[in-house]
C-alpha cells in the first residue's frame, strides 16, 4: 500500500480533523483556560465533574478509550477479512486503508485517553505493546511504500516466491550435470629427459589460471592479493599443476607466481580448470543456504571472476563459462528477491502477534477498569 498517494487524501483529512476535534474536546474540558474565548466548548460538550482523578476514567476519557478499543477490534478483523476473500463486504483494499488510517488515529486517542501519563504497571505494559505495534506497523508501511519499487527496479525478472527453492535446485542440478559432462583429462606422461614435475611448479596454460582462481581465492591471503578493488589480476594468479585425479584435493596455499600473460589453453586444460571451478566455486555457491555470504554473491566480484575465467579457457569453452555466469546471476537475483521479500513481510511476524496480545490486554484493562468504576 503506497501511503503517499492522492487516493489517501480523504483519509488523511479525516484523521487530521478527528485529531483536532479530539484535542479540542480534551483541552476544552481539562484545560479550558488555555483556549481563547471563541474556541471555548459549548456547555453541552462539557463533561460533568467526575470523582475520578485520571483522564481515562472520566466520561470523555472513556469515550476516547472506547473508540480506540473499537478501532483495535476493527483492525484485528483485517486478518479475518483477508482470509475470507469471497466475502463481498468492501474490497480488501478499502479495509486496509481503513486499518491504516484508523489505527493512526488511535495515537492521539490513546494519548488523550491516558492523559499523557503511563499509569500503573498494567497500563505501562499496554502502552509499551502499543508502541511496538504502531512502530512495527509504520515501519511495515514505509517498507511497503518503497520496497515494491525497489524490487521492480533491482529485479528485472522475478520468480514465483514458492518456486525459488525449486529453481535453486534446478541450478544446482544444471551445474552438477555440466560437471559430470567434463571427463577428467588423462594423466600427463612425463618426458623421459625432463625433470619430474614439482608440486609447486608454475602451471602451464590451460588448467592453471582457472584452477588458480579457485585455489587462490579460497584463502584470505590470496583473496587480499588477488582482489584489488574487487578486480582479479592475472599477475597474481598462479596454480600448482595438478593431475586430474587430484582435482578434489585441497589446493596448496603458497603457489608460485604465474606468467603474466597466459599462454593459450588446450581443451583438456580448459575442462580440468572448469571442473575445478565448478567444484570449488560454482556448486558450493549455488547450493549454499545463504548465497550472499559467499564471494560469488557479490555482483562485481562475480563479474570480474567470470571475465577472468573466460580469458583463461579456450574459445570453445567460453559459452560454458557464460552459462555458469548466468546461473550465478540468477542465483544472486533469487537471493535478492528472497531478501527483499522477507523484508517486505517479516515485520508482520512482530506486528500481528503483538497486536493480538495488545488486544487481549486492552480487553482485560477495559474489564478491570469498568469493573472497578
Amino acid at each position: 500500500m503506497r501511503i503517499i498517494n492522492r487516493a489517501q487524501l480523504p483519509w488523511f483529512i479525516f484523521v487530521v480533523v478527528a485529531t483536532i476535534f479530539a484535542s479540542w474536546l480534551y483541552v476544552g474540558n481539562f484545560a479550558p483556560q488555555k483556549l481563547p474565548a471563541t474556541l471555548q466548548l459549548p456547555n453541552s460538550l462539557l463533561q460533568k465533574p467526575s470523582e475520578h482523578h485520571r483522564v481515562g476514567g472520566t466520561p470523555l476519557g472513556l469515550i476516547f478509550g472506547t473508540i480506540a478499543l473499537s478501532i483495535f477490534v476493527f483492525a484485528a478483523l483485517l486478518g479475518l477479512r483477508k482470509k475470507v476473500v469471497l466475502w463481498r463486504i468492501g474490497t480488501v483494499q478499502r479495509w486496509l486503508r481503513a486499518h491504516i488510517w484508523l489505527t493512526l488515529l488511535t495515537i492521539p486517542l490513546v494519548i488523550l485517553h491516558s492523559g499523557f501519563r503511563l499509569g500503573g504497571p498494567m497500563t505501562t505494559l499496554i502502552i509499551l505493546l502499543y508502541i511496538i505495534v504502531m512502530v512495527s506497523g509504520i515501519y511495515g508501511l514505509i517498507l511497503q511504500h518503497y520496497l515494491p519499487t525497489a524490487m521492480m527496479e533491482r529485479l528485472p525478472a522475478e520468480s514465483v516466491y514458492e518456486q525459488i527453492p525449486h529453481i535453486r535446485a534446478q541450478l544446482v542440478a544444471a551445474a552438477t550435470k555440466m560437471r559430470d559432462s567434463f571427463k577428467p583429462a588423462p594423466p600427463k606422461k612425463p618426458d623421459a629427459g625432463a625433470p619430474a614435475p614439482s608440486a609447486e611448479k608454475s602451471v602451464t596454460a590451460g588448467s592453471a589460471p582457472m584452477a588458480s582462481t579457485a585455489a587462490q581465492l579460497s584463502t584470505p591471503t590470496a583473496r587480499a592479493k588477488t582482489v584489488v578493488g574487487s578486480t582479479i589480476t592475472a599477475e597474481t594468479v598462479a596454480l600448482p599443476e595438478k593431475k586430474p585425479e587430484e582435482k578434489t584435493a585441497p589446493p596448496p596455499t603458497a603457489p608460485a607466481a604465474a606468467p603474466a600473460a597466459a599462454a593459450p589453453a588446450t581443451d583438456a586444460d580448459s575442462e580440468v580448470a572448469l571442473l575445478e571451478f565448478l567444484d570449488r566455486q560454482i556448486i558450493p555457491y549455488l547450493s549454499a543456504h545463504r548465497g550472499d555470504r559467499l564471494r560469488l554473491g557479490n555482483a562485481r566480484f562475480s563479474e570480474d571472476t567470470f571475465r577472468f575465467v573466460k580469458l583463461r579457457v579456450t574459445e570453445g569453452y567460453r559459452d560454458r563459462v557464460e552459462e555458469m555466469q548466468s546461473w550465478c546471476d540468477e542465483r544472486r537475483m533469487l537471493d535478492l528477491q528472497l531478501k527483499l521479500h522477507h523484508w517486505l513481510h517479516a515485520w508482520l511476524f512482530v506486528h500481528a502477534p503483538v497486536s493480538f496480545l495488545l488486544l487481549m490486554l486492552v480487553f482485560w484493562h477495559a474489564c478491570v477498569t469498568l469493573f472497578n468504576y
Partner: protein
Amino acid sequence: MAETVEKLTTGEPLTIDQLLEYLPALKEIPRAQLENWAKGAAVRHHYRKGGIVCEEGAFGSTAYYIVSGTVDIFIHNPLAHLRTHPVRNFLGRSMRRMKSFLTDDQTDHRPEAHQRKFIGIDANVDLPINRPLAQLGPGELFGEMTCRTYQPRSATVQAREECVMVEMLRVILDMLVGNRTPSDVTKATTKVKMPTFKGTSFKAELEKKYRERSLNNHLRAVPLFASLDDEFIEHLRQQVELVSYNQNQIICKEGDDADAFYLIRSGMVRVSNALPGGEMVRTYLSRGDYFGEIGLLRSIKRTATCTALDAVDVVKIPAADFNLMLERFPAVRQQVEAVAGARFAAHEQKTIPAGLHLDDFLNQGLFEAQNLLLIDLENCTRCDACVRACATAHDGVSRLLRDGLRYEHFLVATACRSCRDPLCMTQCPVGSIRRKENLEIIIEDWCIGCGKCAELCPYGNINMHPLEVMREMKTEIKGKDGAPPQVKIEKKKMTAYKANTCDLCTQLSTPSCVYACPHDAAKRVDPQRFFGDAIAAQSELIGATWKPVSRYEAHRTH
C-alpha cells in the same frame, strides 16, 4: 512409403486391386500413380458390434471409408460446461470455498447462448445439439479434416453392427476428392513432392450426399433462415453452390463487391482487416457459421477479408437468391439486419485507436489483448492475495499466475487476455470455444476435452479441468452354444476433461483477484484505453508505423 506404413500399424494392408474393389472411384486414377503412391496407404478393418473405431479428442492422421455396416457417431463427453459456485454447508453459502461442477445450458442459461442447433463434426453429418448422435452407413467417409490438418477426432465412432472399413492416409483421400494446393510454408518445408490429384466422381457423390442429408440441417441451423418455409429452403438447396478453398486462399476480400453469402461447411475461416502495418484478426468462424451478410444487406463493399485457414468448404448463396429471400421473408430481413448491425457495431468498436507504435506493446502481444490482468509492481507487495482469491473462487485451482512479462511498471499476469486474434479458437474440432460480447471465453457444452485450445493458447491461459463422470460402456458378450452375442451396457467411472479459462468471475461483480488485492495493485483493464494516452504520446515522438508480431514468437520470449 516407409513413413506411410508406419502410420497404419493396425488393420490388414490392402493391395491396389483390393483398394479398387472397395473404392471403385479410384479406377479414374492412372494405375501407375496408384502403384506409386497408394501402396500401403490404406488398410482394412473389421469391427464387431460395439467396437470403437475412433474416439473423440484422439489425435490421428487418417480418414475412414465405410465399406459395409453402419456406425454410431456421437460425443461421449458430458454435454455440459463448468460452473463455479460457492459451496453450500450447514450455514448456507460458504464464503470461503467455491466449487467447479458441470452444468448444462438448460439449468444454467448463459446470456448470448449460442443459437446453434447442430454440432459440426468431421463427417458428412451433423449432430443435433440436444442429442449428439447420428449414424453413418456404407459409402460414407469420415475423418477428412483430421486426415488433412491433424485435428483431434471430433467425435467417437462405434460400430452398430459388423462393419468393414478402409482406413486411409491423406494420399488416398487426395486421390478421391482432389488435393488442395498446399500453402507456401508447407511447400517450403515438405520434402515429398506430391502429384496433383483433381479428384474423382467420389467427390461429386459426397457433395450429392451433403446436399441431400446435411445441407438442409445446415441451412436450418442458421438462425437467419429459421423462419423460411420448406419450399424456399428447398429452392436454396438447389441453387447454392458448393465451393472449396485451399489453405490461405482468400474467400472474399475487404473492399470488394459483395456478391454472395457464405455458410461454412467444413474448415476454419479467418475474418480480418488490413490495417497500416499488418493484419488484425477479428474472429475465426467454423463449420455452421456464416459470413458475408453485411455487404449484401447494406449494399456496401466487403468490410473484412475472409481467408481459409485450412482446407475450407463453403456453401455459397448468390446475391440474387439472398436478396430474393429478403424480399419474400420480411422477418428474415429484420433478423439479418439485427445481426449485421451488431457485427458492424462490433467492427466499428474494434477499430484501432490512432498512434499505437510501441515495440514492447506489440512484441508482448498486448495490442492483441482486449482485457488484461495487470499488476502494478510499484504497489504490489507480492502477497499473492490475488492468486489465493482466484484459487478460492475456482475450486482450489488458480486460473492466474503472478508471473509474466513486464510492461512499464506493470506485470502482465498469466490470465486470459481475451485476445483479438484468439488462436485458442482456431483448431477446435467441434467449434465449442467461442467468445461472448463481454469478451469472456466460453467453452460450449459439447467440448470433447481434447486440449487443443490449451495447447494453442500462446500464453498458457487455458487449463484442462479433470472431472469424474459415469460413462456408459458397451461390451459384446459371446453367446453360448450358438446363441447370438449380447451387448452388455455398464456404467464406469471415468475422468472427463473440460477446457476452462479465466471466466472474469462473471458470477461476481468484480473479478476475485482484483477484489482481494489489498494494495490497489491488481487491475483488469482494456490495454488500449489504459495505456492509450502514453502510447499516443510516445508514438508521436517515434513516428514509426507498428507491425504486429506473431504471438508464437512473443510466447517464445517468455
